[in-house]
């Protein structure tokens, strides 16, 4: 091969074209993810764009001096290892555990962004010789900009990493909600300390090469304390927020390397993620601040023991429930997290088909925040081949409850709690709910009388029209199915 004067430039130019194509696939992919028909293709298009960006970088990247990347064996080793682990985890995870899986992968991205800052910092120290003081003394504004970006990427990436891992642990049930006394002040103080330390370092007031590592550790701690007090039910909002954090951290990386595809991918996710977070909060009729600071349950805001709803609970056995369902004209099923935990999505579909065969009209009422994430129930029920048209969103199903004979609530609680409409002191007051109390009969499938995720009592269970079917959702549904079959 003959290297003409332009050859080096041309190789890098080819990479720029690849980056342009990748950036386009990210925008297009995200757009297509917004509609059920094109979503899957959109995801694959974005994945294709990511693949060419990765391999393009490995083979075509050149620094200012025209040097290619070294350590290819380590890069490929890392790619192979990461692909193997990531593929296995993603393929093996249960549908119910999807939210925490997303959180986990998000944390990995955050850690990656934080590590990039650390390595780049070491690189900078190594090459300027004089360490930090040398950089600061040179008063080179481009250098100072780089240093600031490293701090920003490190702080945001580290918060996203440790926060996501805590969110993961909470959804897995391994970490409980914890609140230190005066936690809000500790958090605010810690955050200010982070910003001030980073500023002092960049402006040269404190000259220590080690300061960056200290800031990294503090940022990790902040991520933990930030997510710790937030109630498990609000984790989806937190994950969505941390998702946009990682996007911002990736964008800082793009700024650092003058890399447009990183910048575009990062900012796109940063802004889309922030909006998604706000939309999710709106679905619960709460503000983001309220989710982040006003934690459910832990503060003792609700009167769980004192003046909770009183009365007797009527329980029902599965054969009576089966009769009720068989002779109903219209049945609405309200799925909740209990359905997901019990892995009962296939049985519920079987029940639905049996009832339809009897001439009963069956629909599913989907609350926007049912389960642990918006759309969680849709994904789960789609897995068991439930007809897409049978899943009815809250606004459309609510007027139908008054003409419904039997509502079957499966492992849902807060989303059907009438206190959201009637009790201004309730922590969920104002949240739109499924108005199942309008129906003629309600059967609630639940393991026990324990409170829901918001930690509050549900007066629905004490109503005359409500019967409780205690037990694991899958077991109870299975016995309903066999009772129905036995009746023929």
């Amino acid at each position, binding site marked *: 091969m003959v290297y003409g004067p332009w050859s080096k430039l041309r190789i890098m130019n080819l990479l720029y074209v690849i980056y342009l194509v990748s950036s386009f696939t990210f925008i297009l*992919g995200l757009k297509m*993810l*917004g509609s*059920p028909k094109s*979503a*899957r293709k959109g*995801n694959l298009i*974005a*994945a294709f764009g990511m693949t060419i960006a*990765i391999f393009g*970088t*490995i083979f075509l*990247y050149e*620094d200012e001096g025209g040097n290619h990347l*070294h350590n290819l064996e380590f*890069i490929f080793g*890392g790619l192979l290892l*990461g692909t193997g682990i*990531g*593929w296995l*985890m*993603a393929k093996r995870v249960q549908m119910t555990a*999807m939210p925490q899986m*997303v959180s986990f*992968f998000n944390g990995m*991205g955050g*850690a990656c*962004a934080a*590590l990039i800052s650390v390595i780049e910092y*070491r*690189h900078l120290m*190594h090459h300027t010789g004089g360490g930090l003081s040398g950089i600061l003394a040179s008063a080179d*504004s481009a250098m100072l*900009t780089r240093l600031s970006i490293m701090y920003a990427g490190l702080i945001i990436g580290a918060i996203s990493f440790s926060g996501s891992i805590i969110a993961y642990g909470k959804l897995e049930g391994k970490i409980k909600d914890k609140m230190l006394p005066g936690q809000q002040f500790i958090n605010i103080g810690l955050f200010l300390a982070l910003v001030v330390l980073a500023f002092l370092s960049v402006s040269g007031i404190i000259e220590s090469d080690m300061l960056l590592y200290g800031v990294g550790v503090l940022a990790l701690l902040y991520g933990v304390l930030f997510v710790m007090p937030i109630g498990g039910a609000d984790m989806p909002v937190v994950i969505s927020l941390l*998702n946009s954090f*990682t*996007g911002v951290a*990736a964008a800082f990386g793009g700024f650092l*390397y003058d*890399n447009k595809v*990183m*910048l*575009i*991918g*990062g900012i*796109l*996710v*940063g*802004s*889309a993620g922030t*909006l*998604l977070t706000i939309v999710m909060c709106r679905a619960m009729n709460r503000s983001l601040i309220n989710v982040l600071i006003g934690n459910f349950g832990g503060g003792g805001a609700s009167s769980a023991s004192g003046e909770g709803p009183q009365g007797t609970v009527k329980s029902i056995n599965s054969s009576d429930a089966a009769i009720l369902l068989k002779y109903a004209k219209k049945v609405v099923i309200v799925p909740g997290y209990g359905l997901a935990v019990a892995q009962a999505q296939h049985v519920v579909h079987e029940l639905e088909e049996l009832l339809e065969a009897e001439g009963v009209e069956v629909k599913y009422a989907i609350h926007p925040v049912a389960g642990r*994430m*918006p*759309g*969680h129930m*849709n*994904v789960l029920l789609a897995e068991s081949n439930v007809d*897409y048209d049978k*899943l009815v969103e809250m606004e459309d199903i609510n007027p139908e409850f008054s003409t419904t004979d039997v509502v079957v609530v499966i492992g849902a609680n807060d989303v059907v709690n009438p206190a959201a409409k009637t009790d201004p002191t309730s922590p969920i007051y104002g949240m739109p709910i499924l108005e199942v109390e309008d129906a003629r009969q309600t059967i609630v499938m639940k393991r026990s009388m324990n409170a829901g995720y918001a930690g509050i009592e549900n007066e629905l269970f004490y109503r005359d029209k409500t019967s409780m079917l205690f037990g694991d959702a899958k077991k109870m549904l299975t016995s309903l199915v066999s009772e129905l079959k036995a009746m023929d």
Partner: protein
Amino acid sequence: MIEFIASNQDFIYLLILMIFVGIELISHVPSVLHTPLMSGANAIHGVVIIGSIIVMGQAEETISLVLGFIAVVLGTLNVVGGFVVTDRMLEMFKKRK
């Protein structure tokens, strides 16, 4: 400050435009698709892996090599895991109409 803006003009333009594009892309999405969408976005910010590849390809000392290797592995986890999980979620929407 003015100097900073002047020397990073194209990035700042890109920043502003992309914020609006991101908002525009998401604003009319049915809540059914929020989870896959979040997951898909999660995979896209895995683009941070490009940075880890560049940093790894230029690393010289052992600590940087080790950290770079970890960064590449974690970045790959984000990308591969993110896209595969999203695909699994969306696979389920397609089976029937």
